[in-house]
């Protein structure tokens, strides 16, 4: 197994607020990596640094390096838009484009990238919806508004939209926090499947979710990476007392 992303001495700030401190972490290719930790520990900031979304916030900055396939995504001449195409993101709250149909939601990124051939677009939409395990439920209603789907379907639509532009890495920021247990179970199964052919990084508050879906788990506390390793080790026999106390609910 090789590493898709290598984070080196990463620090991040919002103004004077130092939110990530000297993070060093290697993320395996074609595996699911979960980032857990209490609110405000820097989980979301960390994944937003992985596709250059952190810098979109006024006053936000970083230092350090994030290597994607060995190349620093922050080096001169790297187009953040290209980075974000290679590293897609799914957010906490399903956010389909409300005025667009199911089909167009998935096709949006492709159109933005200049794809005009309707047949190719249709094929890619179908493929992406199938990958997101949504095709069977929406294939007869592709013209329906994306916003009319259930919460779980909307989130899978957003995953299909992220997959359509053929990313290599998928970042997920608490993708199930707004979903019921059935919808959550479907997304978790999808995450496991995606982890076989994509590098998936998921931020979650739900430790059992990390235990269920992730091959590797990182525990972040007050902006520092406290422990990172096999999910089974983290949840059975964590090496660090802080990790132990957090995952057993003794604080946080």
């Amino acid at each position: 197994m090789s590493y898709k992303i290598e984070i080196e001495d990463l620090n991040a700030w919002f103004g004077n607020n130092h939110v990530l401190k000297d993070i060093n972490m290697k993320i395996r290719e074609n595996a699911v990596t979960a980032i857990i930790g209490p609110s405000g520990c820097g989980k979301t900031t960390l994944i937003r640094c992985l596709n250059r979304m952190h810098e979109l916030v006024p006053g936000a900055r970083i230092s350090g390096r994030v290597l994607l396939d060995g190349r620093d995504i922050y080096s001169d001449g790297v187009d953040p838009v290209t980075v974000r195409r290679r590293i897609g993101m799914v957010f906490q709250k399903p956010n389909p484009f409300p005025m667009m149909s199911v089909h167009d939601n998935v096709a949006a990124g492709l159109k933005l990238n200049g794809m005009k051939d309707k047949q190719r677009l249709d094929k890619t939409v179908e493929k992406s919806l199938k990958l997101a395990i949504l095709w069977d439920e929406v294939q007869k209603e592709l013209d329906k508004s994306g916003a009319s789907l259930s919460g779980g379907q909307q989130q899978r639509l957003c995953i299909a939209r992220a997959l359509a532009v053929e990313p290599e890495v998928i970042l997920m920021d608490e993708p199930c926090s707004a979903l019921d247990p059935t919808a959550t179970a479907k997304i978790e199964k999808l995450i496991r499947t995606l982890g076989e052919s994509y590098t998936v990084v998921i931020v979650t508050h739900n430790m059992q979710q990390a235990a269920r879906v992730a091959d590797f788990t990182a525990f972040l506390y007050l902006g520092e990476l406290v422990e990172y390793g096999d999910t089974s080790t983290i949840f059975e026999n964590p090496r660090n007392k802080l990790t132990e106390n957090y995952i057993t609910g003794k604080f946080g």
Partner: protein
Amino acid sequence: MSRLIDTGLEQLSRLLFKMGDLAEKTVSLSLDSYMEGLEVQDKVRVWSETLVALSEQVEEKAIEIIARYQPVASDLRIIESYMKIAYDLSRYGRYAWDITFIYKRLNVNSADCMFPSLPIKELKEKVQDIVHTSIEAVRKSEIDLAKKIGEIENEVDAVYYECLDKLVEQDRITTKCLITNLLFIRHLERIADHASYIGESITYLVTGERISLRGRMSNES
């Protein structure tokens, strides 16, 4: 701040400690009575059955905690270890009970089958020691006591094989007496094995490492 899971874990500990006390009492009564040729079958059977019932309660409680709280890390290790230990303690009871009907089953007089040259008393005392140490290790979750179990286990094995060798060498021993002694030392050896399993569970509970405390003897195949 106490957590919701803590109440369940405390109930589990209480059940296990209760089992520990009863298991030690059961083994002691059985072994002492065997040496003295006393009849305690009924009492030991009731205690042994109580141990099995308590072990089932531990299992039920453990499953309930897993279902309700999804324990991880040390909480999870406590539950796994306690479930295993509850089983080992119930086995103490079962072997103790088996020992109580050896004489009756074989229809022998206890005094007729005692051979002073066999270090049976020494074996019996070591087994009582290892049982006591295992119960202490459970109560205190102490790694040093788990290590001590490993040491006593080696001594038990050595005396067990000495007993075996001497039994084979006994002249003019009846088949019934041979089986009587053989069953007794075999049950003792099995009790000590379960004490080792308890030591291993305590080690796992405390350190997260799965180790074996059972050393292999050179004359073991």
